[in-house]
């Protein structure tokens, strides 16, 4: 169940040659968007502000293992055929550091609080280019958490409203991907909550892009006369469909979700948690790379005069000992209880709190765990222990 359903149904697909991607950049830039997309840097595919289409990671693929990430050369020039990197779109929509407000104390001791508002600090207008289906689902999860409750997050909300989302169906899942089993990918549904839906088809004929509008903004962009769009080759829709179907068959991992919530609720005292804790470093990497982990803490600062204070927010992790601190001590002192908190929240109690799973099957937590802990393996062990 996705919280944001588009009001515009998928439009007729159009075809864009990969060599014409710069025109898409230009059309976005002309409308005031800053393009954020994948690029190769320091041996990884990272997300960054891009100005040119040739900054995309053409021909770069990824090879994954628990605790391992390596780039590889692809045989084609596909720009979006790489599995999830160390960052996610969370870095741009829910930044790791953000100022919430400033306070100033006057000579009489009065205090004025000044929030960062759209007027004083406008949200950046990002065009998110190359959002894979797992990550599109992650954005929907964040939408639910940060804008779907009684209060709307003052940082995420405006950034999310401004974002122009260009989703790309996944054709080359990694060794640790499991979106097919959790129902978030690798294909893009007709009603996928994005502005543009892209299928990238790389074969001996080169690389072609099939683009459909999923929103009014997307349709407006595609009407830009400077975009050299054409009628798609008749075989293109079928090719695109086959590519994602093939991708679904090539997932490196699987997570059985049926009844998982109950399995986790019923195994809180399992020795599996002790065993995981003996390996887990409680470093929090999994929470930093997870595209749905949203936890934050606050930092209050003053300047040298002591009369100007600011409140900043930064990402936090439930693996941090202080995370559960209540006067006198922390609730979750053991590594066992902190790993249990993470896994049971992500796969179980997230349903209770926000009406869906918190896991989108991107596999990042397995890749970036220094000791290669694999949540699909741990969930399966708990299921086995819970019995039929």
């Amino acid at each position, binding site marked *: 169940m996705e919280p944001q359903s588009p009001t515009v149904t998928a439009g007729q697909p159009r075809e864009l040659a990969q060599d014409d991607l710069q025109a898409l950049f230009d059309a976005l830039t002309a409308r005031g968007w800053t393009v954020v997309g994948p690029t190769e840097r320091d041996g990884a595919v990272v997300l960054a502000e891009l100005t040119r289409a040739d900054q995309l990671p053409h021909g770069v693929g990824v090879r994954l293992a628990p605790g391992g990430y390596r780039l590889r050369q692809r045989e084609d020039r596909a720009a979006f055929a790489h599995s999830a990197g160390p960052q996610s779109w969370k870095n741009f929509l829910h930044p790791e550091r953000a100022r919430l407000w400033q306070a100033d104390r006057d000579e009489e001791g009065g205090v004025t609080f000044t929030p960062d508002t759209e007027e004083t600090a406008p949200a950046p207008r990002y065009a998110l280019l190359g959002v894979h289906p797992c990550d599109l689902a992650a954005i929907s999860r964040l939408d639910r958490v940060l804008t779907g409750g009684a209060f709307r997050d003052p940082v995420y909300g405006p950034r999310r409203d401004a974002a122009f989302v260009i989703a790309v169906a996944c054709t080359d899942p990694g060794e640790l991907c499991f979106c097919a089993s959790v129902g978030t990918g690798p294909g893009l549904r007709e009603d996928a909550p994005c502005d543009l839906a892209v299928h990238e088809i790389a074969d001996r004929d080169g690389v072609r892009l099939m683009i459909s509008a999923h929103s009014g903004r997307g349709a407006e962009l595609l009407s830009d006369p400077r975009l050299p769009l054409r009628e798609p080759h008749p075989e293109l829709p079928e090719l695109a469909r086959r590519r994602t179907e093939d991708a679904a068959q090539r997932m490196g991992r699987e997570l059985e979700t049926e009844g998982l919530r109950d399995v986790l609720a019923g195994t809180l*005292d399992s020795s599996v948690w002790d065993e995981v804790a003996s390996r887990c470093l409680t470093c929090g990497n999994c929470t930093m790379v997870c595209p749905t982990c949203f936890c934050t803490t606050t930092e209050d600062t003053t300047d040298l005069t002591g009369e100007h204070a600011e409140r900043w927010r930064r990402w936090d992790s439930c693996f941090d000992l202080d995370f559960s601190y209540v*006067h006198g001590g922390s609730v979750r002192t053991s590594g066992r209880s902190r790993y249990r908190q993470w896994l049971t929240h992500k796969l179980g109690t997230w349903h209770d709190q926000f009406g869906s799973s918190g896991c989108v099957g991107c596999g990042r937590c397995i890749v970036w765990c220094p000791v290669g802990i694999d949540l699909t393996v741990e969930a399966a062990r708990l299921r086995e222990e819970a019995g039929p």
Partner: protein
Amino acid sequence: MTSAATVPGRAADPATPLPYLVRHRLRETDDTVTLELVPLDEALPRFRPGQFSMLYAFGVGEIPVSVSGIAPDDALAHTIRAVGKVSEALCRLRPGEVVGVCGPFGNDWALGVGPSEDDDRVTALGTDPGEDLVVLGGGLGLSPLRPVVRLALSRPGAYGRLTVLVGARSPRELVHRADLTQWCALGDVRVTVDHPEAGWSGPVGQVTDQLRHAVFRPERTTAFVCGPEPMMRASAEALMRRGVPPERIRLSLERNMRCATAWCGHCQLGRVLVCRDGPVFTWRQAADLLAVHEL
């Protein structure tokens, strides 16, 4: 799970504090004070008993604190024990100084029932009219219960018997002494301490021990419990032994909170977010959550 509280007018910006002036400061114990706060200009929406604020000490930080008093003129009372750097800074505040306040957050002791003034089918505490009330406070846990007792005493016809049981480690750690003296004249109030000192003539032992002597109709009673978690567990079990059903036992839970708006994730307790779904839960909702070590 109860529905989230909405804050009319403040929903757009619940995270930026409003400046409140310390109008009065009462030293309760060696390390605990009650601050009475009044808005400097704009007032927050009216609090209900059981809801909490985020209190900001300039430049130091912010902590959640339940409201210990609600006055008709928008004044709020908060009772704070100095146990960390923020609470220490708040406890040092003097009359005339400014504190930042966000809120009201969370549900209330009426579990978000939110009765209207003229609804005679349910009381302002979310109980059936005429029901007996048992209030159990352990240590500083008495503070969030103070508005409950005050509300009950202000409308005696709406409620049956009122029993207030208070526990403290020692006589010198008792808070809200003036209220306790006043309440004694109006209801059954029993104060017990773990460690008596010279001059203490009252009972010694667990607050739950006093439950044996209290007179109430278990099937027509709602209990309000706040204190350390072991004390709340023991209280709930003692109340159930007396025949009070688990859905009529209410307790206020405490967890680390950074936002109070369900964005920061700190107050997770199994399936609930304490700031959003609580802090007040029934024992039926909370029993399994409090039974798991380090949940």
